[in-house]
């Protein structure tokens, strides 16, 4: 395991955490976690189910208050008292549990909290127009933007949540399993999008269970296991086997067993 200092590529550190700890009742979800993201860098956060990835994201996004630990943003120590504050700092987040308002339509959800206005009124037309544009960049297959979110398919909902993070001008974008429910085309679009974000100098935190996707777009890969930092890799140095071993905590695991079997089978 190597420290982030030696690994970090060029670029200012926009976000760094140290010693973050969070417990829920009798469960210690995060223990002394550190993480750093630089401008123009895509950091992948991987780990087994329940490793604490989403909890970490929610701590950064101001949804949870950590029990201990420091958060530095753009060089200054901050305390994020709520999601509104995190957003105003420039942290945009796509949550794993999406957090959409089922009773509102697609347009309303996309612009929630950042509605366009003419005078005192919401500018529905401008918002609808912009919605179609955003959704098209993500190859979304949504028949109508005027139906309640509740009636969308899983992937359609996820696309809307991702499109949301593009409204406004964030400095850091956190994507918690953004492609989990997406089709092949939409997944490719999202990976393209992440690369575009990096090019415009944003810091990106990507959580995914898909090692191929991670290896395709990440600069650096941070592994969490059971709520603790377990390993950290530069993407060029990490083989899929290394990653899986770091995630599961053992090199002879069910994944490698399957791979072997498959290899034997097909190969």
């Amino acid at each position, binding site marked *: 395991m190597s420290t982030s200092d030696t690994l970090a590529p060029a670029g200012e550190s926009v976000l760094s955490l140290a010693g973050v700890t969070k417990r829920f009742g009798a469960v210690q979800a995060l223990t002394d976690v550190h993480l750093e993201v630089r401008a123009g860098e895509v950091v992948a956060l991987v780990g087994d189910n329940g490793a604490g990835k989403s909890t970490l994201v929610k701590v950064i996004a101001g949804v949870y208050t950590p029990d201990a630990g420091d958060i530095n943003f753009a060089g200054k120590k901050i305390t994020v008292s709520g999601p*509104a504050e995190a957003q105003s700092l420039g942290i945009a987040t796509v949550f794993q549990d999406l*957090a959409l308002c089922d009773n509102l339509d697609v347009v309303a959800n996309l612009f929630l909290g950042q509605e366009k206005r003419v005078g005192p*009124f919401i500018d529905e037309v401008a918002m609808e127009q912009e919605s179609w544009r955003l959704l098209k960049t993500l190859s979304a297959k949504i028949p109508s933007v005027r139906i309640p979110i509740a009636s969308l398919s899983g992937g359609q909902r996820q696309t809307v949540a991702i499109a949301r993070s593009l409204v406004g001008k964030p400095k850091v974008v956190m994507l918690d399993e953004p492609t989990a429910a997406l089709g092949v085309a939409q997944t490719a679009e999202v990976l393209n999008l992440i690369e575009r974000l990096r090019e415009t100098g944003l810091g990106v935190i990507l959580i995914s269970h898909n090692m191929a996707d991670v290896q395709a777009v990440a600069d650096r890969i941070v592994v969490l296991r059971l709520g603790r930092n377990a390993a950290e890799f530069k993407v060029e140095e990490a083989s899929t086997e290394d990653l899986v071993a770091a995630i599961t905590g053992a090199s002879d695991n069910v994944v490698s067993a399957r791979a072997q079997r498959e290899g034997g089978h097909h190969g």
Partner: protein
Amino acid sequence: MADDVTQAAVAADLADERLIRSQGPRDMLRTTWNRLKSGELGSLPVVLGLIVIAVGFYAAEPRFLSSRSIVSITQFAAPIGIIALGIVLVLLLGEIDLSVGSVSGLAAACAAVLMVEKGQSEVVAILAGIMVGVAIGAFYAFLNTRLGVPSFVFSLAGLLGFQGALLYVLGRNGTINLPSDSFLVQFTRFEFVSPVLSYVLVLAIVLVYAGSQLWAIRQRKAAGLSAPAMGVVLAKAGALLVGLGAATYYVNIDRGWTYLWVFFALLVVIMDLALRRTRWGRHVFAVGGNEEAARRSGIKVDRIYVSVFALCSTFAALGGLLAAGLQTSVSQASGTTDTNLTAIAAAVIGGTSLFGGRGSAYSAMLGIIVLQAIQTGLNLVGVDSSVRFMVTGAVLLLAVAIDSISRRARASSGRG
């Protein structure tokens, strides 16, 4: 790709090939029918229920539909309707306010005491009454957002506490008569819109409606989005003109629209605009639909709560003042009896959900009209009180059952 060629011709929001397109009046009708069947037509079924009630009572006592009776239905519906408007707001957040009755009584009592016993001017008294509502709402919001007390509990405490305060304010003499020349009494009881003005108003409403619709069509076309056909909009505006015009003609046979009702209608329209067309309203729906999602979107959820509770109590106070004017007096019984239940029932019957995120300002108006019509109908038919209670229950059930059954008809995952 072949798709792109057709797409250029089709509006952006109609491009998806799974959309069942409706062009021409035949399709329109079919679509409307489908929407009705699938329970999407909001309040239409309750309106049907209202029509059934009207026909039923008319059969039993034709004077139920007399001009005079309709004027007095609207007049008496207005004060509680205003209170129900506040209830709609708290229900949209998925909260409840059981204390609107007590608050309305207390506000009226404060105003009456100031005006009659303390010799303050009427303006001061009315403002003080409204401030009582604002203050109570702010206090509620504090309890809810800072201490996390559930609204059912603090408004139950308010129901009792402010009833006590009402008794305390009225003191030993009990009932206070409002001076018959006071603005409140005059405005609520004797101000009717003159025939000429009423037709002018109808015309103005229809013009504003048509104008805003046509403007919206232009905007949407300019943005490359689909827009309703011009003809449809004009037909709707025409229907509105005929409907409102006929109603106005009919009530003008008697004394005409009361200003009280016009005021209530105006409040409803303003709240409807505020709810559907402003950021604040959008956020109210968002918080009511999924509070956590709203918070994560950066909405200042606490502010929404504060504004809604304050508005609800303020509407309650306003309704209480107007009810006192209509009644020309304030007594220990003001606002205590059925006011809470009636106001909440009106909102719910009109179609606002008790669970947040679904409803509209119009539901307050529709619901209170249904309730007031039932009461007036039973008054006119004149039956024993045991029968009266039973019929009220049955008619209420009937009015809403039509709504429920029509929603039920949608073939979906059951109770949805």
